[in-house]
């Protein structure tokens, strides 16, 4: 009995010691700090005053299949992004095809957003596990959202 009690005390001591170790905030050194996250369009929602949750117009246009949005992570931080518009005949905002634009991740806003560096302009919103990009085209009463799906390229 005494032997069992000794083992239990030793185990408890080990657990206590382990739980007192400070939690590491360092990234796993084996995990790459430079990588790209590539997105294709999963949905293109068009919202109007009647259809406030939006209609997915993505399936009606082949050109949406050619769109790519890439976030470049450098040193473990989202540092820039690139838009390849493919055959899509409009841009969601003013940008140059394939140009790498510097950005910053704003984790203090809720939901979290990706902003163009040194501006407040929001490029993408991260909410409930989804990444999306809101924009307008012509009529003020219509709002669009690119809903992204991550792809491996």
């Amino acid at each position: 009995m005494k032997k069992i009690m000794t083992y239990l005390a030793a185990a408890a001591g080990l657990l206590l010691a382990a739980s007192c170790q400070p939690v590491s905030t360092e990234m796993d050194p084996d995990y790459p700090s430079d990588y790209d996250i590539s997105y294709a369009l999963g949905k293109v929602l068009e919202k109007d005053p009647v259809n406030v949750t939006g209609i997915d117009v993505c399936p009606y246009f082949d050109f949406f299949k050619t769109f790519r949005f890439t976030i470049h992570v450098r040193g473990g931080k989202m540092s820039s992004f690139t838009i390849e518009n493919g055959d899509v005949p409009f841009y969601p905002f003013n940008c140059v095809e394939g140009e790498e634009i510097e950005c910053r991740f704003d984790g203090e806003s809720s939901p979290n957003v990706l902003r163009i560096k040194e501006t407040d302009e929001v490029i993408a919103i991260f909410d409930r596990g989804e990444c999306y990009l809101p924009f307008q085209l012509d009529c003020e009463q219509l709002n669009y959202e690119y809903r992204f799906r991550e792809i491996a390229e």
Partner: protein
Amino acid sequence: MMIMNGIINFFNRYKFVCLALSTVFMMAGMCRMSITEVTIPDSGNLKANQTVPIQVVGEYEPGAKGNTQVVFAILAPSYLNLYETASLTFSSSGFNYFGETDVTDIEMIPVPDGETEVSTSLDWSSAYLAREGVQGNIGGDVKWFVFRTERTFTIDDKADDSLGDDKFIIGTVKIRFNTGSRNAKFYMGFSFCGTEKGLTLKYSDTEEYGYNPDLKKVVPVEITGGEGETDDYTVLKLISTTPTVFGFGDIFAINFDAGSTFSEDDNVYLCGKAVLSDGTEKTMEEKVSKALMEKTGTSTYRRYIYPKDFFSLGQGEEISELYVWFSNEDGSKISKEGENGHQIQEAE
């Protein structure tokens, strides 16, 4: 004793009728929140290019205490642009029961941009559209034009208890609007509420205050003597769009009910003509996949387009007019209105 027994027997026999009647009387007492009167000249048969007076009277039971501006909404075709062409005044009686001063013919203004309705957080026009819809105007673009008083009324339900809970504000809105140059047939809607509670619903008869559908009235209107054929908003068009409001720089669907024009086996293609801002015309009649219409029913079709892509326009080319028609694959069957086809209108 015999009388008591008689009453008990009567109640036992007709208890459901008694309960139903008492409920009806209770509801009748509580349902004084409504539009009671809409006065419109010639029962809504109006002449084009005229300024028309309309008067709407409503009863409203406000919350126990609060500060509110009076809101009044009008449903009408968007082209009438009532924010520019209508003037509204508000008069009241009954505010004195709530510790306020009644008003006579004070101006109502369009709800300023940026103000939202409390229960939906939408702009007021969109909030009304979400709550009340288009009220049978299924054949064209209509809008809720929302106005309010500039004055805020401060209300205290306990200010005058001599009437108990039987206190109501009677509001009268006088509208003057121009009927415009077009011939049209539509349903015109009118509705009251307040900025404080907005369109928060009065869910049940135990919920004392809030919006209820009786605070809305819809009347048929027809404008004649103007330009063109009557644009009938009350019937579904053979050709419509989704959404109903858009610009030519947006994505939208052309919906088409072909009737018996095409057979079951026909592939139906969308054809179109775009008049550009410099006056040049682009026609698209190719039977290609981006023009092939999706069959949505026995005789109904739909095609989503982004006009610049559909007409293969270059950068800087802007569409000012758009016309559509429909054809089968070999062009032997064509559904086309007039010389140009059906004109698609963008939002003004």
